């Protein structure tokens, strides 16, 4: 019986070999986050640094071609796990958690985490950290330190310089970071200083589990380079170069590519048998959402709390946007039709131009860092930024609605003795809203999903919650697909409610026969 299937199996095996050779056999892909000089940073468009030199030497030793993938730091290890990268070299500290998911090479550098503090409030003992707001780069050992040693939630940022900027703006008391990025931040910033090591750690290169040949080549390279002084030389050279770059490089950081390991992970899961897939899925769900941490909470709490933040920000912003929208729409249409409110109309036009002409993310950051610097509640900042943004779009939608109403309606209201504003509120606006409800509903849905960028101001909403779970578990598809599903359910529920409202409003005034006899 087996013979009947053997040609087929052989063919599949052959195909798999060819694919394996063709796709990844010849190339060594290094996953890294190039904002970490002197280990890796951008020289123009090119990623350079100590880690790059080591990985390139490994590739040369194996006779493979070499490629660097630049991504967010908390995507680097998932990229190795999912097979998107052959190795991860990104100043990665060896931890027990990470060891469960990847194999580590011998350490090539010893380093540690330190506290960056403003000179005005000197840092002396670790006790000072308790209960303070502490900025960290998301997905780093500094984050783990705050969570596990201090038992508190850190303020998460995309990079250490961003965390330092927030500290200078008074948004956190201290920043914890690895020694090298910390030195880099303090350089040229006379108001900041660095403490001694809070804990020391060793950097190593991560590879997928079971790739012993690759691991051996890496270890050999590290040993040779340490012995002949190349590592020390590279470190010195790249430190000098990054110091020189320091003044001009900050803009380049924006070019960090997003690592999306989700699909590769999903396909890998599907390749397994259905049962194994199901078990893996359940395990992953358990790990991501239900497994209890030391303090008795589970990670699912990030999503629950995040959903709360998303709903709170979205709905408060919709209400604020409606209020602003009504006001601006009435001012604009009154001016166009009757010549009222010239000054306010000019002001409204400036508002519309600025809000609609700049990206939402930029408006959010400006609100957070500049306009409302002294406001402590990030939720309030998000509500204001989104409300003011949405108001501009709602204003134009509502204005179209107001313009569509027959002028006879205003005349009839005025002829009955109602004032202009009363006629507007009681006669014109109800009809205008009814006419533009579909467009308005569309704007509400866009706003609801747009709130997913509040992670930029270190506010943990639904999207950021999923992101944190991914960075802690290195599981990519479970958190992201779950987050996507929750958004979908949220939007569908809202669409359904809007549909009901629309039908209700349509029925008043037509079709329905009111039997009053």
């Amino acid at each position, binding site marked *: 019986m087996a013979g009947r299937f053997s040609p087929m199996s052989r063919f599949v095996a052959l195909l798999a070999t060819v694919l394996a050779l063709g796709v990844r056999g010849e190339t060594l892909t290094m996953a890294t986050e190039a904002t970490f000089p002197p280990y890796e940073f951008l020289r123009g468009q090119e990623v350079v640094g100590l880690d790059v030199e080591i990985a390139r030497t490994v590739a040369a030793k194996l006779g493979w071609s070499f490629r660097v993938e630049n991504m967010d730091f908390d995507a680097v290890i998932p990229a190795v796990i999912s097979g998107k990268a052959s190795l991860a070299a990104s100043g990665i500290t060896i931890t027990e958690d990470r060891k469960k998911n990847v194999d580590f090479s011998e350490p090539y550098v010893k380093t540690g985490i330190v506290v960056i503090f403003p000179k005005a409030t000197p840092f002396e003992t670790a006790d000072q950290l308790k209960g303070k707001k502490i900025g960290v780069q998301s997905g780093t050992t500094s984050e783990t330190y705050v969570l596990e040693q201090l038992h508190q939630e850190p303020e998460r940022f995309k990079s250490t310089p961003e965390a330092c900027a927030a500290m200078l703006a008074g948004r956190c008391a201290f920043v914890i970071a690895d020694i090298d990025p910390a030195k880099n931040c303090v350089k040229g910033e006379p108001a900041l200083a660095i403490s001694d090591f809070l804990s020391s750690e060793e950097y190593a290169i991560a590879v997928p589990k079971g790739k012993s040949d690759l691991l051996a080549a890496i270890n050999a390279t590290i040993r040779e380079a340490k012995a002949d002084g190349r590592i020390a030389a590279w470190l010195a050279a790249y430190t000098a170069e990054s110091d020189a770059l320091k003044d001009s490089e900050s803009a380049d950081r924006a070019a960090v590519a997003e690592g999306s390991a989700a699909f590769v992970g999903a396909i890998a899961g599907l390749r397994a048998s259905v049962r194994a897939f199901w078990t893996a899925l359940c395990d992953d769900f358990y790990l991501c959402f239900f497994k209890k941490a030391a303090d008795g909470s589970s990670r699912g709490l990030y999503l629950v709390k995040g959903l709360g933040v998303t709903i709170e920000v979205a709905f408060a912003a919709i209400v604020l946007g409606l209020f602003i929208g009504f006001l601006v729409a009435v001012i604009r249409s009154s001016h166009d039709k009757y010549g009222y409110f010239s000054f306010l109309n000019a002001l409204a036009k400036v508002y519309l131009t600025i809000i609609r002409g700049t990206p939402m993310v930029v408006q959010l950051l400006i609100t957070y860092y500049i306009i409302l610097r002294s406001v402590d509640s990030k939720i309030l900042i998000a509500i204001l930024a989104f409300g003011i943004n949405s108001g501009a779009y709602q204003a134009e939608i509502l204005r179209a609605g107001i313009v569509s109403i027959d002028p006879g309606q205003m005349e009839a209201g*005025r*002829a009955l003795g109602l004032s202009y504003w*009363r006629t507007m509120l009681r006669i014109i606006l109800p009809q205008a809203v009814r006419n533009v409800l579909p467009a308005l509903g569309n704007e509400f849905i866009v706003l609801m999903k747009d709130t997913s960028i509040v992670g930029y101001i270190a506010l943990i909403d639904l999207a950021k919650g999923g992101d944190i779970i991914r960075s802690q578990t290195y599981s990519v598809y479970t958190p992201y697909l779950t987050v996507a599903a929750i958004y979908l359910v949220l939007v569908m529920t809202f669409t359904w409610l809007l549909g009901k409202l629309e039908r209700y409003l349509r029925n008043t005034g037509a079709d329905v026969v009111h039997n009053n006899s």
Partner: protein
Amino acid sequence: MAETLLKITDLKKSFGQLEVLKGLSTEIRKGEVVVMIGPSGGGKSTFLRCMNLLETPTEGSIVFDGIDIVTADEKTKNRVRSEMGMVFQHFNLFPHLTILDNITLAPRLVRGKSAAEAEAKAMELLKLVGLEQKAKAYPQQLSGGQKQRVAIVRSLAMEPKVMLFDEPTSALDPEMVGEVLDVMKKLAKDGMTMVVVTHEMRFARDVATRVLFLEGGRIANEGTPAEIFDRKHDGRLGEFLSNVGGGGGFLGRVGDELREILADNEVTDEEIARIREMLKERNK
């Protein structure tokens, strides 16, 4: 003579370069039914809309209750408007409100009446025009004639001192004109002061106490219905009346001839000659 409600002096109105009203003066006294007729573009509607300040006059004064309302502040203008009812050609009912809410909105918001009080009054007025069973309906469910009757009730609910009608039957199907005119006749009989812009010459002839003929932004002729309709006029008024038909106008006179023909059931050469004469005169 009855007291003067509205005293309009030398009223002018321009839209940009175009002068629509070129200095009109008249007085509306309590209990009068003043009907304004005239060719389109003659300024009838603009004149009427100036009376409750839907259009702001360029010059001149309108004295109502002893105050010049043209120069009054916004609050006074709103109060004055609430004391003048206005009925529009296109009804302008509020489509998002029920008939009852259309009628009670202003009494509640402007007069501060309670909902119960306003509704009782509205139902009473609806009964008067035979539409009490439509109270909970929406405007879209009504015919044109019904809508216009509701619009009249909506104005009456404010207990106005004067009612302004801006071509109230022009947008109606012919078979519905009668029901609206009947309501207006009833109002006139009950002593309501009314200013009406209309093309219904029979209504003007039967109901008006005074007729104004507006032409070229001026009051060209003024008089009782008998003075306007039953005499032969030269110039614009004669031309207008012969075009629309009515009274001493062309159709009126042809009608008289036809009545004579029908009375003795015989057409004389004399009668044919007179009709020919009239046609020739009309075609000049």
